[in-house]
């Protein structure tokens, strides 16, 4: 069953076509990598799916319902989480407070004016459990912008998962990380997305081939190929357009 699907998706910025008839199919429970050279439209595809932009044509289906053009907060409430390529945390809030936002959101605690948030025991407990799971418990009360780069990225990724989404969209989760940090982040992602559906934009081919169940290759706004890693590796068009140029 496809938990996420786009049909004939087009998007343009002032008539500059960025997405061109994109038919993406993400099956429930898989880790789906989206690869492609710079400017292929990967992030734009994410933006259109998660609600930053409304597509100029085409439809997006999430859990069998049409959600084309739905706003980000709506998509989150339907069960989608997203992390960003450029770290986008609440910089002056602590790691704990950052994660807690996700916990509050999932529990539907929004316009609550009558309780102190610090005295909500179950929210605090759940947040602390997440912090432990992502190994940030030692940095619990440090403002996000004082964390080391690797930790800050972990926080970024974990915020997308703190709302406990069914589908999580990770936009270059390992961007700017060192080899060690990348290895650690991959383990983290593998652990946190267990039993969930993950869509991951990634440049590092080692990461892609070790993590993904299926891969979609985007090139100049079009899907070039989509399938399991082995098939993609041998695909002639993909080699010519992307993999070849990277290896050669």
């Amino acid at each position, binding site marked *: 069953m496809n938990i996420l699907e786009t049909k004939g998706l087009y998007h343009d910025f002032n008539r500059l076509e960025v997405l061109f008839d994109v038919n993406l199919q993400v099956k429930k429970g898989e880790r789906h990598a989206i690869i492609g050279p710079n400017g292929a439209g990967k992030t734009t595809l994410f933006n259109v799916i*998660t609600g930053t932009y409304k597509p100029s044509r085409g439809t997006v289906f999430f859990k069998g319902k049409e959600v084309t053009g739905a*706003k*980000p*907060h709506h998509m*989150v*409430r339907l069960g989608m989480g*997203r992390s*960003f390529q*450029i*770290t*986008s*945390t*609440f*910089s*002056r*809030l*602590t790691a704990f*407070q950052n994660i*807690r*936002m*996700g916990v*509050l*959101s*999932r529990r539907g*605690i*929004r*316009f*609550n*004016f*009558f*309780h*102190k*948030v*610090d005295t*909500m025991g179950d929210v605090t407990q759940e947040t602390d459990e997440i912090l432990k799971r992502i190994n940030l418990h030692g940095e*619990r*009360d*440090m*403002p996000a*912008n*004082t964390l080391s*780069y690797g930790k*800050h990225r972990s926080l970024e990724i974990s*915020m*997308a998962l*703190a*709302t406990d989404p069914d589908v999580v969209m990770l936009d270059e989760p390992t961007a700017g990380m060192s080899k060690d940090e990348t290895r650690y982040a991959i383990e983290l992602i593998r652990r946190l997305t267990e039993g969930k559906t993950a869509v991951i934009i990634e440049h590092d081919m080692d990461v892609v081939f070790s993590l993904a169940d299926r891969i979609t290759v985007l090139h100049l706004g079009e899907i070039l190929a989509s399938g399991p890693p082995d098939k993609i590796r041998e695909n002639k068009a993909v080699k010519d357009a992307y993999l070849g140029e990277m290896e050669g």
Partner: protein
Amino acid sequence: MMNRTIKRIAWGVMLLALVLYPWLFGIYYTNVFVTFAIFALYAVSYNLLLGFTGLFSFGHAMFFGAGAYATALALTHIEGCPLLVALLFGFFGSVVLALLLSPIVARLAHSAFAMLHLAFGMLMYTLALKLRGITGGEDGIGGFPIPPFHIPGVVSVDMTDPLNFYYFAIAVLGGSLWLAWYLIKTPFGQIIVSVRDNDKRVDYMGFKVPQTKAVIYALSCGFAGIAGSVYAMFQDLISAAALGIGHSFAPIVMTMVGGVASFAGPIWGAAIFAMIEELTSRYTERVLLVEGLVLIIVVMFFPGGFMYLVGLIKGKWLGFIRGKGFGVITGQWFTKRSGKKATEDDS
């Protein structure tokens, strides 16, 4: 638990000091204190927008003015309007104005938000000047009756007595300050500071940003309205000057001098300005000159304001407390170090 006891004692002492204040300092300084308290609430209401939601407004005076005019008009035109009803008129006068504007302003931020408020503020000022039939123009509305604080069959306190009015004003303003403080401790308070830090991500965490902004905007303006309402009753006069641009800048400079990053900052800012005014006006009429100088010194040397200075001293005194969230609340806002760190992360 020890800490809690000390806190309770401190609050008790403060409450006692507030009660005894008029007896210790006489009626003149009692009135000075009421003025300070009015501006403290006004500045705190402003900082709910600036410091906690990241919304910079150049027109907060219109909400102070809306509260003041609503109360003055109610007391002038409604025969036997009770005191608390007049106060509610002030509160809702501002809230209604805020709700009328919120469909437009809640989708804005940064300079657009600031400049639109400048425009609306000037518009309100001009309206107050020109609609003489309602607002009394430059002369304003004055000499309206100040009703007693009256609970049928229980008590009736004459509010034209400055001492009684002091207790009433302190109760109302102090209560409002407590409500504003409680507000930022709630989950909603957590959402507004997240909007300040990164409104796009708030959307991606599943919260509606414009609605959140509209609610905090209305509440902030409501608090400003209460301050204005008490001001009108205190002076028994309200004129267009209360809507002027200078009155919009007062809470900005108070917040800046006191410290934008903490709840208590604007209160300290209001206190500092009250003291400057009191002390300088003994020697010269050029109070603004001194206030301007203080603002320049603060902006140049202590960009975090008075609270930042307190934080530094306290931090040195208590040793570096990490993990208590202390630095987060007091120091981090404008410090050069965190600023540099942020740009490093971006690159």
